[in-house]
């Protein structure tokens, strides 16, 4: 399915936009929660793989259905890897740092299921982007 024009590219973009809008504005047309795990070399070295597995296990254990886990690259916060961002529809995206497997479980239990943010692990994004 080759893209043969800018219009065709824009069609793909429009279809994908709904999914990614949540990450910047906290809005999307659907009621899907998203968890983004930083899986670059730095994240993995700091244990992001265990974090990711813990998240997947916990989602399964709790039977959460409206959630999507996305692997992303490095956000530049090497001092606080592994990082996990939680995007809930209607809420500002929240970024967590130093997310061990245990913290990951807490995020699901407290933040995702109870709407309660976790002390100590929240990071603030300190950049604008093009």
């Amino acid at each position: 399915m080759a893209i043969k024009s800018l219009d065709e590219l824009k069609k793909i973009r429009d279809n994908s936009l709904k999914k990614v809008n949540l990450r910047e504005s906290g809005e999307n047309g659907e009621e899907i929660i998203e968890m983004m795990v930083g899986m670059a070399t730095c994240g993995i070295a700091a244990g992001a793989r265990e974090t990711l597995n813990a998240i997947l296990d916990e989602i399964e254990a709790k039977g959460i259905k409206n959630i999507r886990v996305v692997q992303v690259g490095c956000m530049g916060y090497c001092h606080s890897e592994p990082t996990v961002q939680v995007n809930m529809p209607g809420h500002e995206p929240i970024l967590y740092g130093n997310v061990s497997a245990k913290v990951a479980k807490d995020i699901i239990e407290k933040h995702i299921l109870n709407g309660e943010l976790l002390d100590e692990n929240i990071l603030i994004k300190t950049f604008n982007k093009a």
Partner: protein
Amino acid sequence: MARYRSHIMVCGGTGCVSAESEAIIENLKAELKSHGYDNEIKVVKTGCFGFCGQGPIVKVHPENVFYVKVKPEDAKEIIEEHIIKGRRVERLLYEEPMLKEKLDESSKMNFYKKQYRIALRNCGLINPEDVNEYIAFRGYEALGQVLTEMTPEEVLKVMKDSGLRGRGGGGFPTGLKWEFTAKQPGNEKYIMCNADEGDPGAFMDRSILEGDPHTILEAMAIGGYATGANHGIIYIRAEYPLAIKRLDIAIEQARELGLLGDDIFGTGFKFDIELKYGAGAFVCGEETALIHSVEGARGEPTKKPPFPSVEGYRGKPTSVNNVETFANVPPIILKGSEWFSSIGTEKSKGTKVFALAGKVNNVGLVEVPMGTTLREIIYDIGGGIMDGKDFKAVQTGGPSGGVITVADLDTPIDYESLKAIGSMMGSGGMIVMDEDDCMVNIAKFYLEFTQDESCGKCTPCRIGTKRMYEILARITEGEGKPEDIDNLKQLGEMIKNTALCGLGQTAPNPVLSTLHYFRNEYEAHIKDKRCLTGSCKALSKYSIDPDKCIGCTACARVCPVDCISGKVKEVHVIDAEKCIACGACYDACKFDAVIKP
């Protein structure tokens, strides 16, 4: 689902904890409770906001209002005014120094423009293994525009007007490099991506490739169109397996969508990309050595000219560009050259990614407009020096660069200004050093690296860097001679002037620059046999302060070489000759009597 309607975020970063953020949190909680709001609004302690000069900082969600320099006693007003009555507490808002205007939302604040991400725009935001997510953030739109609406000349003009300069170290204007390649006769040309990233301490290229691989493919295709190349090669070190995997997936996906291949966007433009693996030699990042390595020859540099844009891969015109350079290309096409050239300084446009490492609190990747000062990077974004110690210097440009000292903390950084103070931009490694770092030792570290990485083709570099390293090693071992300083200088200048390639030409820089700024440390090592910071083990001698020593014998009991003498309740003495500087006595003494060198 959410129980709390709002959150109050208080920074609990290292800088801010010292500035009473704990007390602020307590007070906010108490105020909420006394007004009965504690079930609706939660106080959250967060990591560093990276704005420590203005700390402590309190941010209220969901409105995103940002209060600075908050004191514990301000909690009452924040709760009563903002939370209960919904009115901003004007006096705590941040006042933009330039605008003289109180700003409430962080996104409007200049400070947040301190970090402006162009090259890193998608890192951490998209799934790098899903081309659709890249497309959602305008991916491949620049390529589509270029192919369907612009001539190659127009692309070259945009690139030249943007002022983008190579991020691989040299800072050569990218548009010009592409134009040289485009102007060469013949129709077999190449475009190469330099992903060798050999500077120890730099990892921005890896992060881009791992976090946003499609942007490199797209930019290379744009470069191919502009220069007339149909073939792209990415030279990447084999030590980057994850980046390689993500590039492989990205190339596959791009081919499936026809974004690489024979008839891109239905325009008949043909472009494809292959990966070549490097074995991780520093010199192979030098463009002529890189080309030889891709050709299967020894990774050794050759004389320039001819430049690769005239005679490169297989003797054909080749443009070699760095990863971060490429990552800037699609946004420049989409937003225009004027947008890009409005960022940065007069001669250095756009942003630069730095890998901030060493003794700084927030180690990580930062992307700042050219012209940002070191102070802003280290203190505002980096959160200051670890453990509240004093800043001593920062090494930029890796093994090719030099140190920047306190005197230049407020120098706006760009290609020219860094050169003027004896360092260079390099690829963007930034190693922060504090009062405990010995400058002779640092210089030795870099020379150990370069003399090892020298390809050996030319004498000044092969033998000269080795001699320099030997002298430095001797000095740190307490065997320095008075003439060493002059010899280092003379050798350094000679190597700079006569080495064949950039590796040798820049290798003496760390020595010459530390000699220039910290000559006293070299002299202390050589004349007094003393290392002022105590990092050079051979030179560090522990001693005991007779005024503080009460003769408890704790030190003598732990000394592994039994070189501390003294009777109970009498002052103890260390035999400096025998001391192996293990530091055990220093840790053992409860009366601060042992003096660390």
